[in-house]
């Protein structure tokens, strides 16, 4: 891994890969435009150049900092996430992973199961992941938050929220909307 940490190499690799892929994709739309000499690809390519230059700058800076630290015999930061893993271990990392991915799962389900059915469960799950363990609060708070926000936006602001496509969920969503708007 050389003088850099795994995290630093990963960061550089991400930016270089991002820039490389973005550059390769510019050939898909790099065609002549009659009214504009530089075409549609010029601006993205210029931005990619900036990103590559900055990534190179960051790489050089990381190397210099490491070298200076080694010369002084000072131990440098292992990186934020490495420190978190070393300090807290796998359970915290897993819990953070779930905390971050839970909203995405909720968003992915919204289309099919609908906002009206899925939301209370998402709120309870998120409440649990952020530390609440009392069963009463795990049931009451999500219902209270869900009820308040849903009534405000459905009844008073007439914001249309997804009712879901799957059978059963669609019927439940529509039934609740009619009930709230009565």
């Amino acid at each position, binding site marked *: 891994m050389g003088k850099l940490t795994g995290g630093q190499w990963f960061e550089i690799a991400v930016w270089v890969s991002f820039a490389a892929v973005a550059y390769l994709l510019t050939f898909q739309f790099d065609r002549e435009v009659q*009214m504009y000499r530089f075409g*549609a690809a010029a601006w993205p390519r210029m931005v*990619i150049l900036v990103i590559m230059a900055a990534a190179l700058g960051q790489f050089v800076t990381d190397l210099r900092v490491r070298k200076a630290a080694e010369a002084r015999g000072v131990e440098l930061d292992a990186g*934020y996430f490495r420190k978190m893993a070393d300090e807290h271990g796998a359970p915290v990392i897993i819990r953070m992973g779930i905390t971050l991915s839970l909203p995405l799962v909720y968003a992915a389900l919204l289309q099919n199961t609908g906002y009206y059915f899925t939301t209370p469960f998402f709120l309870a799950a998120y409440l649990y992941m952020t530390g609440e363990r009392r069963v009463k609060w795990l049931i009451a708070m999500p219902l209270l*938050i869900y009820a308040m926000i849903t009534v405000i*936006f459905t009844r008073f*602001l007439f914001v249309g929220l997804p009712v879901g496509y799957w059978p059963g969920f669609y019927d439940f969503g529509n039934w609740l909307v009619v009930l709230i708007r009565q």
Partner: protein
Amino acid sequence: MEQFIAGTLALVSSPLSMVVFAAGLFGGLLFGAIPGINMLTLGAIVLPFSGMLSAADAIMFYSVLYCSGTYGGAVTAILFNIPGSPENAPTAFDGYPMTKQGLAGKAIGAAVFCSSLGGTCSALLMMVATPLIADWAVRNFSSPEIFALVFFGIAVASSVGARTLWKGWLSVGFGLMIATIGLDPVAGIQRYDFGFTYLLAGIHFIPTILGFFAVSEIFVQAERRVRGRFEMPKFSTHFPSFAEFWRLKIAVVRSVLVGFFAGVLPGIGVTLAAFMSYNEAVRWSKTPEKFGKGHLEGVVASETANNAATGAAMIPLLALGLPGGAVTAMMVGVFQIHDMEPGPLVFVTSSDLVWVVFAAMFFANICILGLGYVETRTVLHLLKIPFQFLAPAILLLATVGAYAVRNLVMDVVVMFLAGIIAYFMRRSGYSVAGIVLGLILGSIGEENFAQGMQMVGYDWGDFFTRPIVAVLIFGGVATIVTNIYRELCGKRKGVEV
């Protein structure tokens, strides 16, 4: 003067406008004072629904939110070392040590007074300067000048807010790349759509802003809870005396001037204003070693400047159509929602809107003086709301806000993805504000560059020798070179939020 009176009368004569004014004022104070969220969270949540208000009321809401939220972010900076916004970061340098010494009330009291004073002076200067600049801009600014201004703004924005200069550039570059998704502004050629119809219209800025600011902040605070590092400190409510303020009068005046002139810069002027003012306070102080250890002057310098910059940040927005920071970037969105183009013509087509906004900002800064003291005492009760109850509520509000834009579930997915990306980037030392500014300025920059080159017949000499273009490009290049030099010599002190 007559226009200011007309704007005031328009504000007070409409009950709805007064309600919107109060909502912006209290919303900024409240959201700024609760750790884990800030005025940007509220601004992002309200953005999709701003179309329900008139253009004047919507812009007025954000301008008042800007004033009160900039002060409100100082409360969490002082109490919890969690700056509400990047411009509150220097406040934490001395504010938090003061809290640890049991002097939180003194720090907050200084923040209240200085924020009010800086903001009021800025509002007055803004009322005088903006129409003049707008008038000048109409006659002297066209596409090449706007591109040059965007370049200058990006050059400045990239240097503040991230842990290193390179990460600042990477943040802005990432935002610029997101802005290229969709149809190119010249010929409408599809770029980076991967065959998805959703991407043809580009990534909508509302879900992105919600994700980058509100959702990522929830994730950051959730991580603190998961790691067991979220603590509520105790604090007193003894405020500073007039004598203490009088001793710092020179620092206050200097901070107003630094804040105002730095805040005019499009890009990230408000954050730069706070850092520059703090640095100047250290430089001019007879006891620089006291800074960073709980020195009242540090809080005064930062808070005066960042509120002085709020009025100044409205100048590039209203006079030139360019955002001066994250909140003004949202205001660009509000203009677009109302089918308006921010820029010098706003003074011609909607001067009543402009003067309502000016009057509202002036009175908002005056109100901060009184409400700030009251709010400090009452915020104690609000701080008792456990974070685990706030987080789901904010996520749900953000979900509804993102979905309501275009009734697309994909917007909600994009929002959460943006939140996850922003969480990792923030924890790795990148600047979320830089990403958003790259996103907003990217499309403006590309469009004006293309139009500018067509105007001058692709003659680079003609393009870069236009006086205003030359000055701005030179300023941007000088900023970049200076920053690179400082970075290589290890003289730059980056602070990420």
